[in-house]
């Protein structure tokens, strides 16, 4: 049995502001060595004003929010699109809520809408998670 209900909010996760150190550590730890995230000279050559955050860093933050809320073993599906670029100094907050209870392959699941957004309210990641009840 589960006490997950439609309308429940997933406890939000507010992150520290994104720094160059954040991006350097994530590049090394994740294996994503795309220089656009760690090398300002490369970023400028590619037409960007500065390095910018890996989309997958914010997806990892969404993952933290989900596994803080429910054990990872209950996670069946996790998806998002990357709606806006996250820049240095942005403060990202992850939020989500249960929008529907469904059944898939005989298993009851909570369908959750999730998002990451900047302090301005601009959404950076918009997605969905399916979590076993």
């Amino acid at each position: 049995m589960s006490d997950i209900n439609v309308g429940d909010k997933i406890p939000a996760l507010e992150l520290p502001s994104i720094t160059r150190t954040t991006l350097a550590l994530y590049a090394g730890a994740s294996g994503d060595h795309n220089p656009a995230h760690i090398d300002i000279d490369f970023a400028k050559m590619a037409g960007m004003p500065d390095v910018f955050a890996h989309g997958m860093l914010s997806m990892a933050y969404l993952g933290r929010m989900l596994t803080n809320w429910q054990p990872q073993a209950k996670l069946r599906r996790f998806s998002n699109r990357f709606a806006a670029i996250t820049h240095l100094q942005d403060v990202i907050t992850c939020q989500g809520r249960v929008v529907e209870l469904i059944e898939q392959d005989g298993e009851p699941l909570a369908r959750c809408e999730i998002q990451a957004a900047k302090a301005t309210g601009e959404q950076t990641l918009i997605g969905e998670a399916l979590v076993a009840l």
Partner: protein
Amino acid sequence: MLDRSKIGHQFPSFTVDIERGRLRFFAKAIGEMNPIYSDEAAAKAAGHRAIPAPPTYMFSVDLDGPELLPILGLLDLDIGRVLHGSQEFDYLGQIYAGDSITQQCKIVDIYDKKGGALEFVVQESSYTNQDGELVGRARQTLVYRN
């Protein structure tokens, strides 16, 4: 225009060792404080057989292949013009420290929008552990700015 004949292309499969220290580093880099993601004793106390890989770690398996982003060479892409459009993961099992994960990836679609100004490359990957158990699948869309 990106080469549409590459739809269906299967990249060579490869196997990656999931290292405990690397998972600790990953947990640190994403600010994960739950000790099950960095401390083996805590993971075991929570019922895991080892430190679990966090939900997005499958993407790092992709990046640990013999070539970083083999799609770049195959489609002759300039990495400075590649953006990540979307990412999906399906969980059928759990990846743990100490596992050997075999990744298989193929291109399932290439299409364009805005009269070709943006092109989209869709790849699907599967992840199988050393016991032959399919533990996850992923679907990724890359956006190419022409």
